[in-house]
């Protein structure tokens, strides 16, 4: 009956709906935003990870305890390890939480997860994503549009969908539970402001962002160099090189004031209390191991695999004595420090050096031959990727920091999920996202030939058998009991290869792009 009703009552003419471009774009954006919010609401009852308890704990301790105790509190294992501004954010949320369920604000209620708690926490993520929506809208304004193009082929539409319906972000934020959407919103807004030449706002937003989550330290060099080069030096020579005389002290001082005042608001109370060392030790816990329990697909995953391979070969060919090798397995799923068997062990300092070395060429590049906001964006992504590739104790979720600006889907995020009920959702969303990305990007870049070269296409296709083996075939084999983390390890290593490849290619594109793209604002 309903099908008939639909058919009869609504005969429609989509072309007339498309006739008015301005309102249509806005209504389209609104439709996409509302649609994804509906989906997020449906996912409220899905599996959530320990991050849920982490944030509940932070709600509780910011609400119940006075400020001096925030960074000393250790009843729960999930201590406050984000900068103070995020703590104030949780404090604000806790006041709303009070109306949902007062029990969640009791610090001793570990792992408290009543329906009201779940509803509140999930809703807070969904509502905080409004910042993300606004930022995406601002980013779309920075794109150059061709008038009269069909809606589904417009860059702004494609960008909106790729960002709003980002598979990785949906899975991590709304199933696993985090506030990444909100944070990325601030980041994207900052980037958009730089594209719009509103540099003061961009700088302010970035310092706010850094004080919300200090992981963005990784991309601070890109900001620093870019602002110094393109903003403090107001003019460049004709060939793009530096014009030393155009240095503007006023601008530098203003930027400095903005940044420092943000830090003052955020860290000020704790410096006054003399708690700065404690806060810093909470923010940068170097006691954790080189790799997280579930390996992030970075260089160290490949390094570990190589080390394991060498040790096995060494034992086989009697070059090494098996008794002298360290017993603990790196894939044991615990976050402890381990020694490598064959290759030299990696210390935190070594990773820092590697990270800096990896991003230095990009920084030199934008200093020497800046490419406007576009070059800045590329450099930013490289910094993020570089720190992901070489960083200490990288969580695989950190790839999102690089991915979202890159707008490509990240297959390695799947290893975060362990619950089989979520598997169909993961697959559906991933397929949805992949199909959309491939077809829409293909229409967008039709002039450039094929979107992916054969090697890349094969690599991406190879993910299908890999996933099939890891999720379905492997659990049925005998190795499931003895080597339970092997599928994750395999996925990480495979993805690490892809991420490395993407990193190298991006670097090449940054270093070889020409200067006369300054005038074009497209991404």
């Amino acid at each position, binding site marked *: *009956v309903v099908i008939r009703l639909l058919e009869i009552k609504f005969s429609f003419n989509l*072309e007339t709906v498309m006739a008015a471009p301005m309102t249509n774009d806005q209504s389209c954006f609104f439709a996409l935003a509302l649609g994804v919010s509906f989906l997020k609401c449906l996912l409220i009852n*899905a599996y959530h990870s320990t991050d849920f308890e982490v944030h509940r704990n932070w709600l509780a301790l910011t609400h119940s305890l006075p400020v001096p105790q925030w960074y000393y509190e250790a009843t729960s294992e999930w201590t406050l390890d984000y900068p103070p501004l995020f703590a104030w954010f949780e404090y604000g949320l806790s006041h709303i939480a009070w109306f949902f369920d007062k029990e969640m604000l009791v610090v001793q209620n570990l792992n408290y997860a009543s329906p009201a708690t779940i509803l509140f926490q999930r809703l807070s993520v969904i509502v905080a994503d409004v910042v993300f929506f606004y930022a995406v809208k601002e980013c779309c304004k920075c794109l150059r549009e061709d008038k009269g193009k069909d809606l589904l082929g417009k860059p702004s539409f494609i960008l909106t969908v790729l960002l709003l319906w980002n598979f990785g972000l949906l899975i991590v934020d709304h199933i696993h539970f985090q506030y990444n959407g909100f944070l990325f919103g601030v980041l994207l807004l900052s980037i958009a402001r730089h594209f719009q030449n509103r540099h003061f706002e961009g700088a302010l937003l970035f310092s706010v962002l850094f004080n919300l989550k200090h992981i963005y330290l990784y991309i601070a060099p890109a900001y620093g160099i870019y602002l110094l080069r393109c903003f403090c030096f107001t003019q460049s020579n004709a060939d793009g090189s530096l014009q030393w005389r155009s240095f503007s002290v006023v601008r530098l001082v203003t930027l400095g004031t903005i940044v420092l005042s943000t830090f003052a608001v955020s860290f000020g109370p704790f410096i006054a209390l003399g708690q700065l060392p404690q806060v810093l030790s909470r923010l940068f816990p170097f006691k954790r191991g080189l790799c997280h329990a579930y390996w992030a697909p970075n260089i160290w995953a490949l390094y570990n695999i190589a080390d394991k391979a060498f040790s096995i070969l060494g034992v086989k060919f009697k070059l090494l004595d098996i008794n002298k090798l360290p017993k603990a397995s790196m894939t044991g799923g615990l976050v402890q420090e381990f020694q490598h068997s064959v290759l030299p062990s990696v210390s935190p300092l070594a990773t820092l050096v590697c990270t800096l070395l990896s991003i230095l060429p990009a920084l030199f590049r934008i200093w020497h031959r800046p490419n406007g906001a576009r070059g800045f964006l590329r450099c930013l992504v490289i910094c993020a990727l570089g720190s992901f590739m070489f960083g200490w104790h990288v969580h695989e979720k950190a790839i999102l920091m690089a991915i979202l600006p890159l707008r490509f889907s990240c297959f390695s995020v799947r290893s975060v999920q362990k619950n089989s*009920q979520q598997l169909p959702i993961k697959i*559906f969303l991933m397929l949805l996202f992949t*199909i959309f990305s491939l077809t829409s990007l293909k229409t967008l870049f039709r002039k450039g030939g094929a979107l992916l070269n054969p090697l890349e296409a094969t690599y991406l296709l190879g993910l299908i058998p890999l996933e099939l083996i890891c999720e379905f075939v492997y659990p049925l084999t005998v190795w499931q009991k003895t080597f339970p983390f092997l599928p994750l390890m395999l996925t990480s290593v495979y993805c690490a290869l892809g991420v490395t490849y993407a990193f190298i290619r991006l670097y090449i594109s940054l270093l070889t792009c020409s200067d006369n793209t300054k005038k074009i604002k497209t991404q």
Partner: protein
Amino acid sequence: MENWSLISLCVLLGLTSRWAVSFHSYSGAGKPPIFGDYEAQRHWQEVTYNLPVHEWYFNNTNNDLNYWGLDYPPLTAYHSLVCAYVAKLLNPEWVELHASRGYESHSHKLFMRATVLFTDILIYIPAVLLYCFYFCDGSSKQKVATALCILLYPGLILIDYGHFQYNSVSLGLALWGTLGLGLGWDLFGCLAFTLTLNYKQMELYHSLPFFCYLLGKCIKQGLTGRGFFHLVKISMTVLVTFALCWMPFLSDPKQPLQVLHRLFPVGRGLFEDKVANTWCSLNVLIKIKTLLSRETQLFLSFALTLLFVLPSSLKLLSKPTLWQFKLALVNTSLAFFLFSFQVHEKSILLVAFMLPLLLKDGLLLPYVVTSLAFLFLSLYLLSALERSTEEELRLGLYRKHTQHWLPKLNLMLSLCLLQFWFSLVAMAALSFTSVWLKPPAKLPDLFPVLVSVLSFLHFLGFIIYFNQVQLMEPQRKKSLKKTN
């Protein structure tokens, strides 16, 4: 963007929302001793797997018909049997005779939800896609938009993936039947429809249009020549399909009788619970349930159903086109729903009306989200009420007849719009009050009754409107946009 990618995106969106709804509660979750429809389906798997066929519909020590006895035709039983085999492979405890009563676990829920998804992907979704592409007007983007709206229809999603049922199988097969008829593959259409009849007896609502359409078509082809052979072929298809489905039950004459007794429980009253049909609504004013004897009730419902079904069926018989067929489907099923005996609220699959049921199942959140999403999506994608011409609403003839007392065209359209928005507001208000307010002590069923009466009025309006559209369609074909 190419067609295949748009279609896959639609399907994936449909599948994602279905599976997301399945995270929520099901009917009778954690409510011993009776539980709900979910337990009924599990119980049928237990019964069909462990007992021989001739015991499935009979009451004995092994099979207590009072505890969710089988009351659907054999095809549902076979489907349950297949599911039971799979269940046995995964975890035998799920279908252990007697011991598995009231079995509830996370993995079992996953399994049951997966069975619904599987049949949905196999039967319903392809039918919807084919239907939209072959039988809807407009550009391919419009067709995809229609398909998306149909796939995201909350009623079906909430009942199948929330409450727990297999309506997608019966609706999907009925849709395949319609497709068959539309493409001219009458025998295939017959086969599909007979299968769906053997899956859920509720599909009898749709049987009259199928019958009239095919008979009309045969008559048009000439009953002495080709038409007669066609009729014979159709009858043979139907009979053979029935025979195959009922084969295990044909050995003993008592078997089919018992099955029919289970399928059509005339022992029960005119209606149960709150249904949006005439009898329940009338009961608010006059207590007909107690006033009239059971035989009178049966006769009255039969007579009224026939009365409302006859005009539309006769029209279809005289003019067997696809458009008439679709209209007849609407009219006949509405007539059956409104006037027949022992109608269940789920028969209408109209979401707002099922709110009390969904609240009982703990499905408020999916209800709100899916209804809002569907409403918003249909309004956004198919925004036509502001733009549709009178012709498209098929009100042209109606207008001619009422022209002397409703002279303005705009008034007609604004009335429609007003009525639409009023319905929406009423639905929203009732949903809100059902959830948040407590009814007065003297009238504890106030909100469900209000919901059913309001819905009943809507359905009455629909049946009058669609009957008018069908019956007043001109004989000339050239003025019609939809030629089939």
